[in-house]
């Protein structure tokens, strides 16, 4: 079972991917999945203070659960318009 992680803009450039499948672990939260990604890509830590998170297209806090098969989006500060 996996969790899909979506990356955008500067964060996608940093990681070198727009979408990753990470292994799911029971009890996963936004923070635990992000920290697993950071273990592989240490520079993600620099982004963490300004990231917002969305689980299955709903904004979520760091302690929100991430179910198996869910999509976690890591959202840098937006700049549309």
């Amino acid at each position: 079972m996996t969790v899909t992680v979506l990356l955008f803009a500067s964060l996608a450039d940093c990681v070198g991917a727009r979408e990753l499948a990470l292994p799911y672990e029971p009890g996963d939260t936004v923070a635990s999945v992000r920290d697993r990604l950071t273990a592989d890509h240490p520079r993600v830590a620099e982004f963490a203070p300004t990231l917002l998170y969305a689980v299955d297209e709903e904004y979520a806090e760091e302690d929100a659960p991430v179910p198996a098969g869910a999509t976690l989006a890591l959202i840098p500060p937006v700049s549309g318009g």
Partner: protein
Amino acid sequence: MLIRVTPERLDPGAAIEAVRRDEAGAIDLFLGVVRNENKGRAVDHLVYDAYPSMAEKTMRALAEEAVGRFGLGDAAVLHRTGRLEIGETSLLVAVSAGHREATFEAGRWLVHEIKRRAPVWKKEVWADGEEWIEGPESLGMERAPAAMRGS
């Protein structure tokens, strides 16, 4: 309610017609346009990235809030993605209402909230480099230490 995030060119006429109502005497249309400089630096072009499904969801929620808050007839939001040249339109926000004051107020509010909340990003490309811009109004920036936010 017309809400769209698309790589296609944006059509102002489509946004206007989407909000036109027999009982609405006023329509305001805002266009965000790619300009040739930012902070004194010559811009060659922009590249917009987006999380399209969530951006549309966010824009729809904000447009619905604007309709209620300002008593609008309707609202429409279109945002373009991909590479945009100088002078091209990146954002269209159209609102209609019985009278004009509500349209100016609602247009201003809706554009501000979209820039602040919708998951869309722009990269400036210059002759000698490029950079993803972090919006000074972005919600995410509220979490950053002041030192990271710049001026």
